[in-house]
């Protein structure tokens, strides 16, 4: 018993979870600040949260090359985790920047909003750095549960209610599958530690028969695929994305998706290596399906928010291409792509935040007629983001797609790559449509646009910088992504 | 020769088990029945009345009379009441009350024909969790009763009492954590054993009853359990004057009797648990179970006394007490215990 305690003490190693730990502390601090500050004032809270995120960013970056292993090898702070942590932090900061004015305007000035964002980010970090199915599961749940609330934040908007409810139901549903998969893998290998599972498969000393392992893998995959909104588990995405508060939609499409990918990649490429043949072939099909579904349905959307939701499905598909390639380039391509996607997609949503008016109206294409002339800056910004989403150089989107498809071709998945580029050709159409409305249509009657405000504008500028930087000089970041593989 | 566990000899095991159960059950019912009588007498005298005097010597047969009367009463099930739950509810309340007693040890292990017989129906290693679980079940009985009888009073009473029960269940649960931190076990039997040693291992003229080392926990537990079984001053659910006796408004005849029994059974049970956790259970000068009975009766008298003395608290006061005072106190108590124990080591 005593030596057990000693063992536990030696294995704690807070360094392995320091970023998320700080973030959680800040989250609680924000909660306290919220309850002790006058109702309806949230600006200072948002700044506290941003401060927290910045500090976390520094700490997290300290984790580069640190390879801290903690808690009996159930958490590790390696480059992989660090890279994703950075992505999450960027996403969170952008979200918070674009949020404050928005929630004031929509009439829900709640400090909890920020606390929940911080908790979500912390959960995402656990997912990225978890090396034990238990920690990954915990991270996933912390993330999801906070997101359920955030999606349903606007209590009296039926749209928001529905978004929350649907996200909750399908999220919990998928959690069930994930857990069942974990249980089966546990039964087969007798451990929930990723490396342990891998070793068990390698040494062939599995308790139950391997068909159960495959079943477990499929169920686990299902759980993750739900979270990354891959077809055929994407049904929740458009509704939730459309219904949730716009900044939260932006956040969902970037942070949690990246987190799900992080866990997905780690689990499958570390512990299920021995079954790579099976899951790559499965992902091949699913990636194609996802890209096609996302792009084709997006064409017929005339609500931009919903269109972006479907496009995010498609982008998940592109990232899955990298996963199906399952080689170094493809996997590190996912890392890079997620960061690029965070910038461009959140930028686009930030523009939507300033484009809509109270109650989220005029996010339709019609509402965007002549947008480029009424709001020149926003128009240009939106254009840049859309080109990036299309994958036109010199933008982050192009660099990301290049990286991913390069991975696919490296793995000789020529047809997958071809299907991929053809899909992005399809995607051109609906992205161009937005621009057509923004610039080629005469301004419709004035919609009483929301006033510009510093924070949101800042987030947009940040996103633009990110998109162009990653587009014109992607080298360093790509190098980082390369070094981030385990 | 050293005594061996009974489980190697099934026939004997079964017989002893049946015997124990029957004895406990009968005793429990007797206590419950006469608790009503005692209560009326005691309160009567406290209010300088005599209480029941007619049936039997000093109304000694009163409980029986009441029972018979209720037994022959018409059994009304209101229209639009959901029948099944309506019938189920009283049992949901009574059964947990009775079976909670299974884990209460009422004496030291005795040796019969070379076999070790525990004076306890079932010695669970998680006895306390079992107790809490049963206590939790009680809430269902009440909320079901309140909901199923399709009467506004019942519904309000039911919901109120549920809220009250869960609130205080929390406090009770927290308060006894401190005890386990000292006892390092969840088995009531072992807890009693530990309380037979001298206090803190040093003071040899006092037993190591946890009431001495955990007075705060004791107080919290007693109050919380009072509230949990809806006794005065926490008897809002059946507040006669405002809710026409709450969740059991629509009940009549034997079902009503069951609720009644359940209340007293609960009193007995929590007295027993409190005695076991804090007052050394069956340990004491006399043969085991007598000590236990004495402690139980003492508690019961105390409860009756409270009823005679205290007015009913307001609902907001009730909740305030539960959440804002007892819960923090419970946490503080745990922290204190932890600190002290660490310092002692």
């Amino acid at each position, binding site marked *: 018993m005593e030596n057990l305690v000693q063992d536990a003490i030696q294995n704690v190693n807070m360094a392995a979870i320091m970023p998320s730990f700080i973030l959680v502390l800040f989250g609680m601090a924000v909660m306290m600040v919220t309850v002790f500050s006058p109702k309806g004032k949230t600006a200072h809270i948002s700044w506290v949260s941003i401060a927290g995120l910045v500090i976390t960013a520094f700490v997290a970056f300290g984790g580069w090359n640190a390879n801290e292993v903690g808690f009996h090898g159930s958490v590790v702070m390696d480059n992989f985790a660090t890279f994703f942590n950075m992505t999450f932090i960027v996403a969170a900061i952008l979200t918070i920047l674009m949020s404050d004015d928005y929630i004031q305007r929509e009439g829900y000035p709640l400090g909890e909003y920020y606390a929940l964002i911080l908790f979500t980010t912390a959960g995402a970090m656990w997912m990225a750095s978890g090396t034990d199915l238990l920690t990954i*599961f915990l991270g996933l749940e912390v993330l999801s549960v906070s997101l*359920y609330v955030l999606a349903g934040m606007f209590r009296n908007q039926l749209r928001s209610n529905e978004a929350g409810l649907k996200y909750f*139901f399908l999220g919990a549903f998928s959690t069930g599958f994930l857990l069942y998969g974990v249980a089966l893998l546990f039964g087969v290998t007798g451990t929930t530690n990723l490396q342990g599972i891998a070793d068990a498969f390698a040494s062939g000393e599995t308790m139950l028969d391997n068909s159960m392992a495959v079943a477990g893998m499929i169920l686990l995959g299902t759980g993750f695929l739900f979270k990354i909104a891959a077809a055929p588990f994407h049904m929740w995405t458009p*509704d939730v994305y459309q219904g949730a508060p716009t900044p939260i939609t932006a956040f969902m499409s970037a942070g949690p998706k990246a987190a799900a990918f992080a866990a997905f990649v780690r689990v499958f490429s570390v512990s299920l290596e021995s079954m790579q043949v099976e899951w790559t072939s499965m992902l091949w099909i699913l990636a194609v399906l996802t890209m096609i579904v996302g792009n084709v349905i997006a064409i017929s959307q005339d609500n931009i928010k919903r269109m972006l939701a479907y496009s995010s499905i498609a982008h998940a598909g592109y990232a899955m291409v990298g996963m199906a390639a399952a080689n170094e380039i493809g996997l590190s391509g996912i890392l890079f792509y997620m960061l690029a996607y965070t910038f461009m997609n959140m930028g686009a949503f930030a523009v939507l935040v300033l484009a809509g008016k109270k109650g989220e109206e005029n996010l339709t294409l019609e509402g965007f007629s002549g947008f480029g002339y009424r709001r020149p800056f926003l128009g240009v910004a939106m254009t840049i983001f859309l080109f990036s989403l299309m994958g036109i150089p010199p933008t982050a989107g192009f660099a990301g797609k290049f990286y991913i498809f390069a991975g696919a071709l490296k793995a000789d998945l020529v047809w997958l790559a071809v299907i991929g580029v053809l899909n992005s050709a399809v995607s051109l159409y609906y992205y161009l449509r937005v621009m057509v409305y923004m610039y080629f249509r005469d301004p419709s009657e004035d919609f009483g646009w929301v006033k510009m405000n510093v924070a949101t504008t800042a987030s947009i500028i940040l996103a633009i910088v990110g998109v162009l930087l990653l587009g014109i000089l992607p080298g360093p970041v790509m190098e980082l992504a390369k070094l981030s593989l385990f | 020769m050293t005594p061996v566990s009974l489980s190697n000899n099934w026939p004997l095991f079964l017989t002893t088990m049946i015997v124990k159960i029957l004895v406990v059950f009968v005793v429990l019912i007797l206590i419950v029945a006469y608790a009503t009588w005692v209560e009326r007498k005691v309160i009567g005298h406290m209010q300088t009345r005599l209480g029941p005097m007619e049936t039997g010597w000093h109304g000694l047969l009163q409980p029986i009379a009441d029972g018979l009367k209720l037994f022959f009463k018409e059994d009304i099930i209101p229209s639009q009441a959901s029948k099944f739950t309506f019938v189920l509810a009283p049992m949901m309340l009574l059964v947990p009350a009775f079976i909670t007693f299974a884990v209460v040890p009422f004496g030291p292990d005795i040796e019969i024909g070379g076999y070790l017989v525990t004076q306890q129906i079932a010695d669970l290693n998680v006895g306390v969790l079992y107790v809490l679980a049963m206590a939790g079940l009680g809430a269902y009985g009440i909320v079901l009763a309140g909901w199923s009888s399709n009467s506004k009073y019942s519904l309000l009473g039911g919901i109120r009492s549920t809220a009250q029960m869960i609130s205080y269940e929390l406090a009770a649960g927290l308060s006894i954590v401190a005890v386990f931190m000292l006892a390092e076990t969840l088995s009531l039997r072992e807890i009693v054993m530990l309380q037979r040693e001298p206090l803190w291992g040093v003071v040899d003229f006092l037993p190591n009853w946890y009431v001495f080392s955990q007075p705060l926990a004791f107080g919290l537990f007693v109050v919380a359990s009072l509230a949990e079984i809806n006794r005065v001053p926490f008897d809002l659910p059946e507040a006669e004057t405002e809710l026409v006796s709450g969740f059991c408004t629509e009940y009549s005849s034997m079902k009503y009797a069951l609720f009644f029994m359940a209340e007293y059974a609960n009193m007995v049970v929590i007295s027993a648990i409190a005695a076991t956790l804090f007052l050394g259970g069956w340990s004491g000068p006399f043969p085991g179970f007598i000590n236990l009975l004495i402690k139980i009766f003492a508690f019961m008298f105390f409860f009756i006394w409270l009823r005679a003395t205290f007015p009913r608290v307001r609902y907001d006061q009730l909740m305030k007490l539960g959440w804002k005072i007892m819960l923090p106190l419970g946490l503080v108590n745990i922290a204190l215990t932890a600190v002290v124990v660490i310092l002692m080591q």
Partner: protein
Amino acid sequence: MVTVYHYLVLSAILFSLGTLGVLTRRNAIVVFMCIELMLNAVNLSFISLSSFLGNVDGQIFVFFVMTVAAAEAAVGLALIIAFYRNKESIEVDEVSLLKW
């Protein structure tokens, strides 16, 4: 004699029942209970497996699953109630403002 497989089969059945319930039932609360059923089916297999393998990881996992389930319950019910207050109904068919 009852082997681990019996437990696994049982939990599989429970899990499938839960899944079916989620997919077929229309009352939000019932759907939610079905999800809980799924989680508890998983818990069952965890516990049986961990006793079969003789390592407690599974039981620890169950601990966390239970906690998480509780948190989900709290949030989920809150969402359902918020929806009910706006819509006066908890039929998931009514959740249709956005294309389902």
